[in-house]
């Protein structure tokens, strides 16, 4: 019986679905922004700038891709930025103490994953609403990171490790390859596996999902753990790119990640959206911020613009959804 209900509940997600059309609109928007920027600024189309945009977008994407799964279940993870900071500082310490980047990377991923798991436990076992549980976690992590670092900066990592964030392969930054890998994995996981489909089902209708035999709590744990682990991965790339770790590196990361997810067409109300959309979202946000940068708008304007974009994205999502009904 459960199989039949599952089939009935899940809309077919073939490639030319509603999702694909939504993604197509967003690609057009990204191209339009590119065209405008190319006209306004001479340096936009330079190779250096384009690679820079791609690298920047990939950093946002790593955090936002895990977050997408959380938002697909109608949840939210506000702790991702603080998680990146703590994971980066712990991974950095491990590399300094042991001299082994591999060990550092593993610790960073593990740290991120454990934080994510704790978020999942708060949401499932303790039944605290996700936005407030992860908001509490944000401040716990912030406090821990500042306490642990005590104002210090970790600086100077092995050259091989630094390649992850700042190196090139065949002329493309290495984070861009990682982006392609995780874009592929994320898309396959969400669209082509039972677990992925169950995540959509939980977001679309948690009661129906539970009644049809989906282990909702376990899937939610998985989703928050993945979000945390992706924050851990982002922390490694930040660490390697910046070649330093400080307690405050996560403060400006959460809002852009949420913006990328929402611009990408993932609905806050769950059940609708794609990882690929989030990639386009990250690209659009990065293009806007990059354009402001090229047009010599002060970086002070970035939080204001990101805040407006978040609200606009939610509003647009709700408008299209209302029209569709």
């Amino acid at each position, binding site marked *: 019986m459960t199989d039949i209900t599952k089939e009935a509940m899940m809309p077919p997600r073939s490639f030319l679905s509603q999702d694909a059309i939504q993604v197509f609109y967003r690609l057009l928007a990204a191209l339009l922004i590119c065209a405008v920027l190319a006209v306004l600024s001479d340096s936009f189309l330079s190779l250096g700038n384009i690679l820079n945009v791609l690298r920047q977008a990939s950093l946002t994407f790593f955090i936002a891709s895990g977050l997408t799964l959380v938002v697909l279940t109608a949840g939210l993870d506000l702790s991702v930025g603080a998680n990146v900071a703590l994971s980066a500082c712990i991974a950095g310490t491990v590399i300094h103490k042991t001299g082994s980047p591999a060990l550092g990377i593993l610790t960073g991923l593990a740290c991120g994953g454990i934080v994510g798991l704790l978020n999942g436990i708060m949401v499932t076992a303790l039944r605290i609403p996700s*936005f407030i549980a992860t908001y509490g976690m944000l401040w716990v992590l912030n406090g821990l990171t500042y306490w642990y670092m005590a104002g210090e900066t970790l600086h100077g990592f092995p050259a091989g490790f630094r390649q992850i964030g700042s190196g090139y392969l065949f002329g493309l930054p290495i984070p861009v390859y990682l982006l392609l890998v995780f874009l592929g994995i994320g898309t396959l996981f969400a669209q082509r596996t039972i677990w992925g489909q169950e995540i959509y089902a939980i977001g679309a209708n948690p009661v129906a999902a539970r009644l049809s035999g989906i282990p909702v709590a376990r899937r939610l744990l998985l989703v928050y753990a993945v979000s945390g682990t992706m924050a851990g991965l982002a922390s490694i790339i930040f660490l390697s790119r910046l070649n330093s770790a400080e307690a405050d590196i996560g403060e400006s990361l959460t809002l852009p990640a949420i913006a990328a997810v929402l611009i990408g067409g993932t609905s806050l109300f769950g059940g609708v959206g794609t990882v690929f959309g989030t990639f386009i979202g990250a690209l659009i946000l990065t293009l806007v911020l990059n354009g402001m940068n090229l047009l010599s708008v002060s970086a*002070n304007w970035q939080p204001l613009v990101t805040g407006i974009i978040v609200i606009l994205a*939610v509003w647009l999502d709700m408008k299209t959804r209302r029209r569709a009904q």
Partner: protein
Amino acid sequence: MREAAVVSEPNPLQRIPGVAIVLVLLIALFSAIAPGFLSVANLSNVLVQSTILTMLALPMTLIIMTEGLDLSMGAVLTLTSLCVAIVSLATKSMLLGLGAGLLVGAAFGVANGWLIAILGIPPFVATLGTLGMAQGLSLIVSDGQSVVGIPHSVRDIYSATLLGVPVPIVMALVTYAAFHGLLYHTRFGTYIFALGGNREALRYAGLSPNKLLIAVYAIGGAMAGIAGLLMTARMNSGHPTAGLGLEFDAIAAVAVGGTSFERGNGWLLGTLLGVLSVGVLRNGLNLISLPSSVQVASVGVLVIVALFLDGLRSRA
């Protein structure tokens, strides 16, 4: 609990234990381990330092009672604090500074209410967006620098006394009295209970829940404006990160104070005791030389525990 929506006076005996026990335990703990905690000077210090939080936590209680949330409060306070500093610096007038702070704060409150009530954007995302906007505007108006050299008339508000009581405490008490009167003794207060408990009833009564909701958020913004004046006076300057994270202490105070996040009933005295709990916790940790980072983490744990217990109670 839904049917309790129009009952305006809560039964305090039911909830006094939770937050009062927390407060008493914290006081007992720090009396034992923190030297100088019980001195008059330190305790009055805790009270004065709790005043800014009181001004945020009281309106936050009303907002949470409507099953809402305002994550932008700290950032809006930062912005209003800067507005107070900049305007009072330019005009040499404390009142004009306060006016500017109130105006900007109320404008953000109305914007929050509009996004939530009219556009229907979930409160935590709407106010996260306005948080970013207020943060950005703070950086823009201050250019990332402190605003110094503000007039004495502003600074004196924090240090002056009225009949021997520090002015910030007087302001906090007046605010508490006003909120108590508003929530428990006016129709508007009853409507606020209904906003959380039974919005349909408001519609049937011919009232507009949307307008009421905007009013509640506007009150929150305006209070952030008044708190901004106190913040500027306390720091004797405007600083672009002055209010960072204050909304979290406010949410903590409300959660510890026993206002439910799920049932639309709130308790102002509980919030006041919650504010004192957060104040005592931070002060005590400070006295035993734990850095502010540990204080932040402890408040985070406090919130998660309080919400867990709230969830347990609401399911019981």
